């Protein structure tokens, strides 16, 4: 018997849960303690014990007003992007798909940039709401344009996404052209992604949407497995492919729009996390979905820690960090996956 490359990678989901859980706790602790103002473990325990309104001091306000909402938002956004990536790759049967492929990220960034340039940023959550609206609209548009005869061909869908992305790029470029200097800085920082604007209000805005998206995504687990066979064979096995794809895209739109609306564009989380997990745990979506939520959170928390500590007191855009770490790693993954599994076909 030949083992190794051709044998399915299978770590038990129990082992994965323990490892991911430990990694999550460690990364949360690190992100809460480290930064421009260090909070040692003893102080951390004390300010947590004091409660959000009980204590005083710098450590107390840094923890409750800055660090904790930031870590919470990183968890929600990273988890949402990674789960959206798993669903996207599943319905497209393509490991290179991610929320950006259907134009969600581009649409959301158009919404935010337009909001900044026309002055909606003065309104509370004006940019975020505009981003959410833009992402949802773009998702619906891509889907409507790529349907014909009641069916959606995968290639058409992806090509339509590319066209929408190009259109969005042009609109953003034009917005930058007409914007003043302050607005350009705001647009640039936002479109590179940041958790620097994390507040409890932002957490409150994104959390219900993310939770709804994650709960709904659990219903797709088995169907996403079957879709790996292709549209026609999945239909022969009783999957109403069109209805499933429409619902799945709606869930992706929900998750990714919410994430992009809160933090701007964060690249590679939705692409990278499902890849790593598939190599370690195998491709079954039942396990992939929850594990992606946890690993997406871990990756985003750690990337944000790097973004705000590596050049302190300056803060790097989070999207730059995820792309700097993510892109080379992604290329490496491409190579190993091609060698081990004979490419994607």
């Amino acid at each position: 018997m030949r083992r190794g490359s051709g044998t399915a990678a299978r770590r038990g989901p129990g082992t994965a849960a323990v490892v991911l859980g430990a990694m999550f706790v460690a990364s949360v602790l690190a992100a809460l303690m480290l930064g421009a103002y260090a909070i040692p473990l003893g102080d951390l325990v004390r300010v947590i014990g004091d409660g959000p309104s009980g204590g005083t001091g710098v450590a107390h306000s840094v923890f409750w007003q800055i660090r904790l909402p930031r870590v919470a938002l990183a968890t929600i956004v990273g988890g949402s992007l990674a789960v959206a990536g798993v669903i996207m790759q599943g319905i497209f049967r393509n490991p290179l798909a991610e929320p950006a492929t259907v134009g969600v990220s581009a649409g959301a960034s158009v919404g935010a940039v337009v909001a900044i340039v026309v002055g909606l940023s003065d309104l509370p959550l004006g940019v975020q709401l505009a981003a959410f609206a833009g992402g949802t609209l773009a998702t619906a548009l891509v889907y409507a344009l790529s349907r014909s005869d009641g069916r959606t061909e995968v290639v058409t869908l992806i090509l339509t996404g590319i066209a929408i992305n190009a259109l969005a790029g042009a609109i953003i470029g034009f917005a930058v052209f007409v914007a003043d200097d302050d607005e350009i800085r705001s647009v640039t920082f936002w479109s590179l992604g940041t958790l620097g604007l994390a507040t409890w209000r932002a957490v409150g805005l994104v959390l219900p949407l993310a939770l709804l998206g994650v709960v709904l995504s659990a219903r797709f687990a088995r169907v996403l497995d079957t879709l790996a066979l292709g549209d026609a064979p999945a239909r022969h096995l009783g999957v109403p492919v069109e209805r499933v794809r429409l619902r799945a895209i709606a869930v992706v739109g929900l998750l990714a729009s919410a994430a992009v609306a809160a933090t701007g564009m964060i690249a590679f989380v939705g692409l990278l996390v499902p890849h790593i997990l598939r190599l370690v745990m195998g491709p079954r979506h039942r396990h992939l979905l929850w594990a992606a939520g946890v690993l997406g959170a871990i990756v985003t928390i750690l990337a944000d820690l790097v973004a705000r500590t590596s050049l302190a007191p300056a803060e790097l855009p989070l999207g730059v960090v995820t792309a700097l770490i993510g892109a080379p790693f992604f290329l490496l993954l491409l190579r190993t996956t091609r060698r081990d599994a004979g490419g994607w076909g």
Partner: protein
Amino acid sequence: MSATRPGPSTAPGGGGPLSCTGLGVRVRGTTLLHDVSLEVRPGELLAVLGPNGAGKSTLVGALAGDVPLAAGTVRLGGADLATLSHRERARRRAVLLQQNPIAFPFSVRDVVAMGRAPWGDEAGIDAAMARLRVDDLADRVVRTLSVGEQARVAMARVLAQDAPVMLLDEPTAVLDVGQQESLMRIVRGLVAEGRAVLAVLHDLNVAMAHADRVIVLREGAIAAEGPPRAVLTEALLSDVYGQRVRVVDAPGHPTPLVAVDPSPGYASPSG
């Protein structure tokens, strides 16, 4: 209930056969199938033959519900196919396509288990793998297997679906002679269990040896139908394929053999 239509009754257990009447398929003004009527009976292997482009795969697609119909109806288990949900269809018929690519590194066991999707359980997976002799490969990643192994995995998945009607589009196309024979023995076993099997076959000798009945398609219409010995004559095959063939009795061989006649100069009457 198929009271409107004469012919064999539905199979026991509420499954039942597959039939179509007046089937027509048009794609962008081109007629791919015209007025095709047929019935697959329980306990029967119906082979569909014909040259490339005759509409064999289109017929499988139309019977499976993949291809929109320009005319006619398909009945599955006594009901109009168009009125059945995807799940109801999947519990009544299984389909094996010519190509079975799989995205992502799923294992053999994962893929065979997908055959149980319409039922939502795990029954019969091991038995299906054993029957196609892919049980040794259960933990292997399907797309790292050989073409023949992948074809057997796809067939095991169809077997696990456990449907009373099976549509097989060239199930033996990528198999060697030995694998082809053992696959056809498995198909005969399914037929012996009372299933209705329609198989598109390329190899006329496979059809001659294993089919209960054959349908020969030419340019989207049925050119001949009946028991293989009666239908697969030198005249008909030479005409349909535009190639002179010989049908010869071989001593000690249970069925006649179809062989290409190498002498040149045959002009098909139909073109």
